[in-house]
């Protein structure tokens, strides 16, 4: 089983962060988030998400950049970045597919859905298609149990997804 596939681990190979420059808009957005809390560290997760929205993932250079904006140590930012499953510390495809692998979907066709998607894309959990279009990951119960098996593509939630509808569905995402 590849259920533990995770993109949250720091990869020593992906070190194109050396020249990382925090976008001015992102810096402003992080500072605005900071003001919602009693202490700046609290904006850490949102800051990572802000960077990820622009780059698709969190490059190495973003860690000290965020730390500097928030006035906290880079280790605490990296500690947070590697803990949360939806913060990606490796490059991902243009669309991240999250397939719910929890109990209700397991009972209503998760295995068949996963097989249809891995067959269609030729990748397993934790992998990205060679054309950089899709990354495939498992996710905790999506709270769509009444319509399992459920999955997300980017911001969109689907369910139930019959295996034979997968090819058509993926076409919507170029």
């Amino acid at each position: 089983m590849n259920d533990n596939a995770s993109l949250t681990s720091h990869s020593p190979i992906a070190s194109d962060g050396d020249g990382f420059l925090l976008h001015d808009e992102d810096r402003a957005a992080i500072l605005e988030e900071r003001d919602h809390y009693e202490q700046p560290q609290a904006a850490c997760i949102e800051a990572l998400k802000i960077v990820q929205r622009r780059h698709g993932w969190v490059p190495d250079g973003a860690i000290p950049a965020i730390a500097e904006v928030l006035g906290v140590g880079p280790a605490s930012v990296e500690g947070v970045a590697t803990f949360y499953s939806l913060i990606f510390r490796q490059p991902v495809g243009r669309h991240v597919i999250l397939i719910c692998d929890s109990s209700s979907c397991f009972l209503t066709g998760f295995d068949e859905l996963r097989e249809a998607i891995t067959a269609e894309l030729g990748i397993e959990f934790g992998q990205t298609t060679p054309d950089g279009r899709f990354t495939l990951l498992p996710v905790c119960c999506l709270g769509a149990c009444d319509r399992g098996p459920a999955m997300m593509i980017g911001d969109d939630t689907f369910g139930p997804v019959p295996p034979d509808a997968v090819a058509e569905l993926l076409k919507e995402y170029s």
Partner: protein
Amino acid sequence: MTSSPASLRYHSQLRQSAAERLAETHPLTWRLREDGALIGLEEYVEKEGYAAVKKVLGKQSGQDVIGTMKEANVRGRGGAGFSAGVKWSLTMQGGDLARGYIVCNADEMEPGTFKDRLLLEQQPHLLIEGMILGGYANNSCYGYIFLRGEYIEAARAVSRAIGEARAAGWLGKNIAGSGFDFDIALHTGAGRYICGEETALINSLEGKRANPRNKPPFPGQSGAWGKPTVVNNVETLCNVPAVMQHGAKWYQGLSGGLSDDGGTKLYGVSGRVNRTGLWELPIGTSAAELMDRAGGVRDGRALKTWLPGGGSTGFLLPEHLELALDFDTIGQYGSRLGTGLLTVVTEDQSVVSLVRNLEAFFARESCGWCTPCRDGLPWTLKILQSLERGEGEQGDIELLESLATDLGPGRTFCAHAPGAAMPLESSIRHFRHEFEAGITHRRHAAHADPIPVGEV
């Protein structure tokens, strides 16, 4: 089958018609529309929205609100079942103490649970009103809605509602002329089931890794940034406006003698049944009635077993269907009500495989803080995988039983490991023969597919 991508989109929906849902009997859902569309501020106010805030703020004391909530006995709908009124009465306030925080736990990730999504997506103002009242009672200066990152639609609905409420003066300075200042921010998460644990949630809110904290001190004493903090589930907070509007006695009466608990519950059913869904029913409604509403098991199969309220509750049998679905009753049968959303398992589905799926979830989602959880769960998973493939060895079941004990209450900082132990222990108790078959079955080649359900 040619489903168009648009028709595959998920929409949260209640399975009850508007005619069935009345303000007097369905405090959580009577305002919801047949078409499932978001209820904006205008419609919410037309339907008695913010009436409880107007009735209470500046006219009753915070202690009065807590008193009413204690009498109503709204038990925590996130699954723990602890009285919200009692929890509020333990929040430290007064004297030189700084005002603290009220946090809504909207990190719905319990396997098999899809109830808070409905309230968040379709009726966010009810939650905001509940938080204003809770903030008033607990002397909170600020509220946070901790929403799981994957609930995109809910985030849109909640953000919009917070903006509307602020513009209309329901949030901000001097709410409804009462002198009470209070505002709310939406905080969205970035994954990890453990964030739903109260103290891990507070760490996550503070921008840290979501490891649980030791208790005591309880959050009501020292929570977010060391301030008194109260954390309540979405459904719990959504009950508050009606309790304050109509009173504790009315709320108690909603269960109509079905239960010692008061109020209604958002119940649901998932799995292979004919009509999965959500229903707001008196708390204490039987699982049998819920199964009737769900149209029974699909494809003419028989019911094998069911979970009453998520992946961290214990398995129950068809003979338990007549039980009242409330905290005390279900607690007497080696399980917990949990979130009150049933997961149905049919006769042709393997309990060993399902428990393997559940323990894989708990193993992956352990935050790694406590040894029994971090190390015990992956070992549990490995044994279950062996049994599932017919590669089990003598002693495996006894080892699983001892793991279920060692993962149980009191060995770890939080309830994650005990939550994993309950389905494990109860599945072995009820279906030991299925586990034994994983030992006695003719050995498959290593890493072969699971042995067919009929044989396990």
